[in-house]
């Protein structure tokens, strides 16, 4: 194994929205917004698509929890290509679904891409927990129209404006 392959650290930022000024922003049903931090930038998925900013640079402030996901050999260039592809298809802004396809879905997928590992299950399980209640089911049509986007990021969408 060559050791001179550049490796990049990958982290998961978890924002627990039940406290702090996040409350006055777009309320988030799930209570946990997540983002991936790598290559010195933070990436997350919101109602406008994939966005990036400097780590901790959204209006949510610094994260509540940081999970080290490990290292990746994927270079930034490849990663940006990957994100662009994602941003044009699976993770376009209009694909945002509060329950099934949200910031945590994105984070999970990117984490797996970069490191082969998933994000902690308590985050990915949130939507199904809510959905398993009858009221969650009922409110779904309304909730589906809710998009969560912490302001303060630049949108990566492969050059297309949504």
């Amino acid at each position, binding site marked *: 194994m060559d050791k001179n392959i550049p490796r990049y650290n990958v982290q998961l930022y978890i924002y627990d929205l039940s406290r702090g000024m996040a409350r006055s922003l777009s309320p988030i049903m799930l209570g946990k917004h997540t983002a991936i931090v790598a290559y010195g930038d933070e990436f997350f998925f919101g109602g406008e698509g994939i966005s990036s900013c400097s780590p901790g640079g959204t209006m949510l402030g610094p994260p509540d929890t940081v999970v080290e996901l490990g290292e990746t050999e994927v270079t930034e260039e490849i990663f940006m290509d990957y994100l*662009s592809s994602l941003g044009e298809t699976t993770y376009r802004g*209009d694909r945002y679904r509060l329950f099934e396809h949200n910031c945590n879905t994105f984070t999970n997928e990117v984490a797996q891409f970069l490191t082969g590992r998933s994000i902690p299950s308590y985050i990915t399980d949130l939507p199904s927990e809510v959905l398993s209640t009858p009221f969650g089911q009922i409110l779904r049509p*309304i909730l589906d129209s809710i998009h969560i986007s912490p302001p303060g990021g630049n949108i990566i969408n492969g050059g297309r404006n949504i």
Partner: protein
Amino acid sequence: MAEQGAADLGNNNNNKPEASEGTIIKVTVKTPKDKEEIAIAEDASVTQFKEEISKRFKAKQDQLVLIFAGKILKDGDSLSQHGIKDGLTVHLVIKTAHKAADGSSTSASSSTSTQAGNSSASSPAANPAPTTVPTGSGQAPTQTPNIMSGFGDLASLAGLGMGSANFMELQQQMQRQLMSNPEMLSQIMENPLVQNMMSNPDLMRQMIMANPQMQQLMERNPEISHMLNNPELMRQTMELARNPAMMQEMMRNQDRALSNLESIPGGYNALRRMYTDIQEPMFSAAREQVSFGSNPFSALGGNSDSGAQPSRTENREPLPNPWGPPNSSNPSESGGGTTGSTSTSGTTNPSVSNPLGVNPASLGNGMFNSPGMQSLLQQISENPQLMQNMLSAPYMRSMMQSLAQNPELASQVMMNNPLFSGNPQLQEQFRSQLPIFLQQMQNPEALSVMTNPRAMQALMQIQQGLQTLQTEAPGLMPSLMTGGIPGVPTGGAVPAENPASSPSSAATNPAQQQLMQQMLQMFAGGGGSGGGNGTSQTPEVRFQTQLDQLNAMGFINREANLQALIATGGDINAAIERLLGSQPS
């Protein structure tokens, strides 16, 4: 050994599982847009793997970047070296000179199907159209069980009052969402129902005063009662509520003024005092409100009242946890539930931008008549359990009661229901049926039927049966039609989602109305005697003779007569007593 493997692979280049040297494993290759399963020998090299991939994805091998477990697979490596085994997923990025779109555009079509597959659960509910609420749930099938349509309005009024803690939590969050989403808020504000409610100061005052907490508060703080009685102020307040931008402006001004005030020596204490004196009881009053829109007015009323001394607008306590357990830590079965203030309903936790807990969701009573809520109601009605929950909410009762006592209020609200606004005929019918509704709401039998899931299901089956009958034997229906109750809400409200069905739904209207009417009659009149009357005539027809008699006796209020007759099941004497005893306003 590697060469042997290569030779073998050279032979079976195309998915021919030959269990020779290397067992064939199936590896999923995932691009941002697509996902394919590729069969490859276990001990193949990355190069060979890429060959397969380039064929499948129609990209050049040197454009392929394979990633597994965070590592980039180099051509010289072997799959087993990286631990790639059967069933695992390898990520692929197709590099293009310019855009990744080129290489994967071919798989775009399949990717949409994947996407659709992924979100199949949500696509019926929310079309991939602009995801505004009306459009998204305009899908509400016109087959909405129409039982809810009749109760729907009342239900929507009490919609916020569902007795489940879970819901309240969600509801609070929903409110928060509404608050912070100005668009939604303005949508709500524009809802004619809401506007109408708000433009009627008497109505608002009535509602506010109806709340015992408010009454207490008013006693303690005469200022508040002054404020309420001051029409000018009320109007201003309502203007404010109507205009979220203005509201925000004002809040901001007050925040600023407040901070100024703070800097004055001694000012802080004054503020603190004012806060504790006034804001707290306001909060608790607001918290206990039954959702009707009284909330924003108590809040805003307090707000404008404190215009001179903007102390109330700043919240010094730690803001409560919106995702925690509902704040109202109340035993939701306190008392007979008639006071109506036992559990929180449409309350919002005060927040920085909304110091007094303005409750837009309660403002958005009209929101519940949006198609979004319609489908919601439909789902509710489909789940009798929820009906039960809803109806057992303490303040559902009180709401019903207050509605029953104040038919004007109820009728007003219902009239302004946007569903009916375009159809004066429906309004008329509805209005005439209103007292029946109210009566039936009060009829414990009816309530028990509503809370009985099986009964509800039966009703729904009947409903559906009728609809089927509609389509199958339209000739049958006209014979049953003789006026009726407003039936299909979605038929009126949902725009050309389903143009084909709206004419037919208009046709089904009368029949369904008919059904509704029968149901109601059964509830209101013959609830006790078993609801199996099954006459297919309207009460007018049935009670024709009685009506005539009543008319001859001098009871010229046909409507009242009818209701009385219905209530008493055709018994003239009892009807007369009814008419004489209770003078329906």
